[in-house]
């Protein structure tokens, strides 16, 4: 008999083998598609738009239903004013900045673009484009040079583009009526257009205001155009010294009967020019400063404060930094006097600490202006101050709850006034520095907020929830904290007993869920319409979090570009659990889970960021948070502070395969730009362990897109200095002209289930099992000899810096992103091919590489262990497949034991998430008629990747702007959690090999029951018969 251990081993191997067979059998039907009733139940989708910086609402006295915004994510959206839900949105191209937003004849006009300029009229109710006007060959210039205004007479549009072209466009059809162009090579850039009172006998005049470049400053140039013919009537050149375009404001006008003005700031005076004349009036800065009390301690230059008033108003505001510590803002309101045509001081807005944001609106039905000043009062409160200009007093001061820890300061505000009954109702929309968008309304139920910071997600981490059993270790059965009260043994026993009895009522539900695990997938029978649950007051009464039966529920920790960390429940439609904002320019580099939920110990998150201090130096900062609550993770021990910093910039951070004995957290290694390595925590024990390990630590660092070489580093311990330094170990300089385009990302969780691939004849190809190889793709955008760019893929051993494999693709298009992912011994990458020859098709290509130890079957490397320093090179099998979609992100599924097959996930520019089984991206797919062996291996004959919409995990949802895809295993081997993010966040459960470990959705329990009943009935029926027969046999 063989020893029992080896037999056990055999059995495990055998079980794995049978499981494989079952999976392969299941995969005979290849497409894993969604059932309609699952849609919206196993997945959720948050539609985000980004942080608005422009907003407009239709002018009504009754209060508008929709507010239109444009965001810095280039999204134009209509938000329902009462609930904050999206009515519609138009996601514009990357880089298509929105320059202007305006309601025109009940619809919405947008002016957007960078290389191409588009003026579009959008249907106010649906967001459909009514017309799209785009002059050929014209782009936009950054900052200014694009503007739009309406003519009062025929309410057509006058559009300024590229700082040089002025066109009149029909508002109805979007056709050009006339076109005026600045002279070729003119030194003037136009920035604004205004219809206003003409001069001498010219009535219908549109003024185009421009800045002419001088040597040190700009001077004003104004062209008057005939608004009917588009002919230039007269050019005014006003001698002036303007340093930036922001020092110019255009006021008044809006009709041919009202005067228009230009106000601008010069070195020591403020000047006002009435359009149509050439003599400006002048007020000295000194005069202004002495007039406004809050400018007494002025420490900066005065700037215009944008109020967002429509044409026709002549109010403007000047503001500046004041105060001893440069931390306050003062502001004064001015008006242009109709008689003297000079600036006239109206009111002092006073000094407020921190930032102030202004917005103005008119009272419903009148022309009286109310100015909103939004600022922060203290840590908990924001303040909205409404100033009535006509009555010259603050008509209202409203405090609103605004947690500094979550939102910091207000960065943009917009005021809307409407009448209800006798009074005036106020609605204020504002963005905060963390990226979120809020609405305050007099009606409490209409206050809402959108956590728009999630549109800026940079990274996501998955936190496993503690088991309920573990949770009860800290909290007793009745839900009280154990430490809270001291009970005698008898009391505790009685309490425990009653608690157990109370828990019995959950038993039926538990039994049902156990008997039928698919009920977890099937809570409601049909898909419910997606509702934006993240809107509204953040839910503070969150149930204690614990894991579900299959580990499908996790906390997703999103870190964002804005410096905010948001924790979201992966179940429960993505409810926000907590959020933390790290203000003052925290650049969040990395979020690492240093401890998973452990007995009694909560999961701990390390957040690594970089800030710039007052002296312009970079500081690396580390924070430790309790992942369940988002609070600082405090301990008594001074070796484990909740925050720490290093006076140097961030280069890299990774987890070491070490655990510190005191806190059971994984040790972090931080690399700063002084090339020092620091461990966290840095207790003596940890440092000793790290030094022991340091010989074997190799890593890549600072290899960014655009670099011309790939660099690897190692840790050096200098014995005398007691310090750990980072030293370059190797460098791979790429050939002339090539720069890194992509470094493939691995899934964070990876387990290899089988060592080899079984061929049709029972032979095995052994997988190349090097955990330290990286796929790097370089591009050469301008090759010397060829015409089109080419790209090269390198597989690099990251320990010794050797190139394991390399391949070049000619004629690559660069407008489509190149994407790559790798796992185990597989690499998949996609790109746009312009066709290597003139006859080869243009299209997307997906290339699959598989790395094996040897070309020949059943051959393995001699050595028992794998060493990076041995000279083995993998045998690479490669195949490319035509791919039907434009992809923007790539990822791969990961499951607990790695037994399930893999799906390659693609985020598509058609705003969907696609899953392609690896069997379709298999480089061994036979080209031509498959042989018997290939059939035996169940290989699918070679074909382009199909355009089957059933492969879309996001079905018909509009998952816009997917930039990254992350996956995490669950306790079910079949199922993986997929999170796709970028602009929107989409989370779903996906089972690449179907859910083989739980009962299928369409498993008919009724059928099973019926079968049993029938069998039992038959048993009762036949038993007497058999008995009779046996008795007969005995007799005869």
């Amino acid at each position, binding site marked *: 008999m*063989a020893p029992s251990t080896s037999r056990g081993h055999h059995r495990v191997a055998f079980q794995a083998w049978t499981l494989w067979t079952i999976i392969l059998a299941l995969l005979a039907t290849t497409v894993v598609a969604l059932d309609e009733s699952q849609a919206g139940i196993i997945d959720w989708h948050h539609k985000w738009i980004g942080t608005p910086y422009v907003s407009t609402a239709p002018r009504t006295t009754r209060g508008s239903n929709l507010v239109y915004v444009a965001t810095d994510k280039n999204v134009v959206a209509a938000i329902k004013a009462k609930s904050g839900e999206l009515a519609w949105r*138009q996601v514009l191209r990357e880089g298509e900045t929105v320059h202007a937003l305006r309601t025109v004849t009940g619809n919405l006009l947008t002016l957007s673009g960078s290389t191409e300029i588009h003026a579009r009229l959008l249907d106010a109710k649906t967001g459909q484009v009514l017309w799209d006007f785009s*002059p050929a060959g014209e*782009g936009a*210039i950054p900052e200014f040079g694009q503007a739009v205004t309406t003519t009062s007479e025929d309410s057509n549009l006058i559009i300024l583009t590229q700082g040089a072209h002025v066109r009149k466009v029909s508002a109805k059809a979007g056709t050009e009526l006339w076109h005026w162009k600045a002279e070729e090579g003119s030194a003037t850039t136009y920035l604004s257009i205004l219809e206003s009172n003409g001069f001498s006998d010219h009535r219908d005049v549109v003024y185009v205001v421009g800045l002419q470049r001088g040597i040190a400053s700009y001077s004003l140039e104004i062209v008057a155009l005939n608004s009917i013919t588009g002919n230039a009537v007269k050019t005014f050149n006003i001698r002036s010294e303007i340093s930036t375009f922001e020092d110019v404001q255009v006021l008044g006008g809006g009709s041919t009967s009202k005067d228009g003005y230009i106000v601008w700031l010069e070195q020591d005076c403020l000047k006002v020019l009435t359009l149509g004349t050439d003599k400006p009036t002048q007020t000295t800065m000194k005069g202004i400063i002495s007039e406004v009390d809050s400018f007494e301690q002025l420490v900066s230059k005065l700037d215009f404060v944008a109020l967002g008033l429509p044409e026709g108003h002549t109010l403007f505001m000047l503001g500046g930094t004041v105060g001893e510590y440069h931390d306050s803002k003062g502001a004064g309101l001015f008006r242009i006097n109709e008689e003297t045509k000079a600036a006239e001081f109206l009111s002092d807005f006073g000094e407020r600490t921190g930032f102030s944001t202004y917005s103005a609106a008119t009272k419903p039905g009148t022309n009286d202006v109310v100015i909103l000043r939004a600022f922060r009062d203290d840590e908990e409160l924001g303040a909205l101050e409404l100033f009535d200009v006509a009555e010259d007093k603050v008509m209202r001061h409203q405090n609103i709850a605004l947690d500094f820890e979550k939102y910091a300061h207000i960065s943009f505000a917009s005021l809307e006034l409407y009448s209800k009954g006798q009074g005036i109702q106020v609605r204020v929309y504002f963005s905060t520095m963390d990226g979120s968008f809020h609405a305050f309304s007099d009606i409490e139920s209409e206050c809402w907020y959108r956590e728009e910071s999630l549109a800026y997600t940079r990274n996501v981490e998955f936190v496993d929830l503690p088991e309920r059993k573990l949770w009860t270790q800290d909290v007793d059965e009745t839900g009280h904290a154990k430490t809270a009260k001291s009970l005698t043994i008898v009391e505790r026993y009685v309490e425990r007993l009653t608690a157990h009895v109370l828990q019995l009522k959950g038993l039926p539900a538990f039994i049902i869920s156990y008997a039928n695990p698919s009920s977890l997938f099937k809570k409601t029978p049909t898909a419910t319409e997606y509702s934006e649950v993240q809107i509204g007051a953040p839910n503070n009464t969150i149930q204690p979090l614990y894991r579900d039966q299959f580990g499908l529920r996790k906390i997703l920790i999103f870190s964002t570009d804005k410096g905010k960390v948001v924790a979201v429940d992966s179940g429960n439609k993505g409810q926000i659990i907590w959020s933390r904002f790290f203000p003052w320019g925290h650049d969040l580099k990395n979020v690492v889970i240093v401890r998973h939920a452990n007995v009694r110990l909560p999961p701990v998150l390390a957040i690594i960021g970089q800030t710039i201090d007052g002296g312009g130096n970079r500081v690396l900062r580390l924070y430790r948070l309790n992942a369940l609550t988002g609070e600082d993770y405090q301990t008594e021990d001074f070796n484990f502070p909740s925050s720490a910093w290093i006076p140097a910039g961030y280069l890299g951070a990774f987890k070491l395969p070490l655990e510190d004995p005191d806190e059971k957290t994984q040790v972090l290694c931080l690399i700063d730009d002084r090339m020092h390595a620091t461990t966290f925590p840095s207790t003596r024990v940890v440092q000793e362990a790290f030094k022991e390990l340091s010989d074997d630590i190799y890593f890549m660092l600072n290899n960014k897109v655009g670099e011309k070489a790939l660099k690897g580093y190692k840790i050096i311990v200098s014995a005398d200095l007691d310090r750990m330094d980072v030293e370059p170990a190797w460098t791979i300089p790429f050939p002339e002209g090539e720069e890194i385009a992509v470094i493939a990302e691995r899934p964070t969780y990876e387990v290899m289930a089988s060592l080899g691939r079984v061929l049709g004849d029972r032979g095995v190809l052994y997988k190349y099992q090097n955990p330290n190889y990286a796929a790097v793709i370089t591009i050469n955008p301008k090759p010397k000899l060829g015409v089109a760019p080419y790209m090269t893929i390198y597989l690099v051993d990251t320990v010794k810096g050797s190139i394991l494999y390399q391949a070049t693709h000619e004629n690559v298009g660069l407008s489509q992103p190149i994407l790559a992912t790798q796992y185990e011994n597989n690499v998949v990458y996609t790109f746009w091919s312009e066709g290597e020859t003139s006859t080869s098709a243009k299209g997307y290509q997906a290339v699959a590489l598989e790395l094996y130890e040897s070309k020949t079957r059943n051959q393995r490397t001699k050595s028992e262990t794998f060493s990076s320093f041995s000279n083995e090179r993998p045998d690479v099998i490669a195949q490319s497949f035509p*791919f039907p979609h*434009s992809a923007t992100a790539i990822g791969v599924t990961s499951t607990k034991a790695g037994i399930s097959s893999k799906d390659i996930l693609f985020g598509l520019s058609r705003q969907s998430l696609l899953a392609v089984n690896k069997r379709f991206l298999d480089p061994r797919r036979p080209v031509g008629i498959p042989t018997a062996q290939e059939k035996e291996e169940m290989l699918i004959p070679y074909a382009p990747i199909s355009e089957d919409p059933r492969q879309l995990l996001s079905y018909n949802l509009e998952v816009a702007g997917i930039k990254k895809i992350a996956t995490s295993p669950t306790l079910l081997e079949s199922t993986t959690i997929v999170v796709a993010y970028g602009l929107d966040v989409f989370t779903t459960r996906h089972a690449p090999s179907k859910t083989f470990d739980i009962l299928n959705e369409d498993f008919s329990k009724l059928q099973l029951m019926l079968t049993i009943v029938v069998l039992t009935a*038959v048993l009762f029926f036949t038993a007497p018969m058999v008995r009779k027969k046996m008795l007969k046999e005995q007799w005869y």
Partner: protein
Amino acid sequence: MKSIFSRPIFALAATVVALISLSATTTSAAQISGVLIGAEETPHPKDLSPRTRVILSGGQYTATITRDGRFVFPDVGEGSYLLQVQNPQYIYPTIKLIVTGKDSRAHVVNIGTDWSNNDNALQLPLVLTPRAPVSYFVPREGFKISHLFANPMMLMMGFSLLMLFVMPKLMANMDPEAMEEMQGMQDAAQMPNFEMPDISATLAKFSTGGGSSPSSASKKK
């Protein structure tokens, strides 16, 4: 989007120059336009999703569609492009677009086929009709009593039940010679198990400690 315009003037000048040179080089560019039509049940393009985009060569150019289904690429440089329609409701054909100054052409192509194939020419401006509506879901089969009886499990059960009654009578009516012949046939039908490994045999082998080879067994003795 508001940052202080403190950059030197050259930056602005450079952009302007770049833009001017851009418009100078793309003299041979052309305007490409077309119209999308919905499928039969909702033929009006008004019902097309506002998120529809028409893209050229993987996003080199992108166009939105207007309410009447029209799309325009105002300024497409010379060359050949792959035109795709991204619409959540319908699958549109993919199109090869050859843009030359005056005489642009369009052909329907399939992904992965030869690029020089110039069949299926289309008129410009393009009029695109969907190939099929998109279906994202697999319909689930509901429970039907007929399915229950069509189930192999049930059929097997019914058959064995039938045999239980019929077989004895059949056997009784058979003459002994035919009986013997059938027995022989059954023995011959014992097919040798090739190719597929016999699970039960393997199991038995493992559970008895893998002593399949007689040599190892003899050694132990």
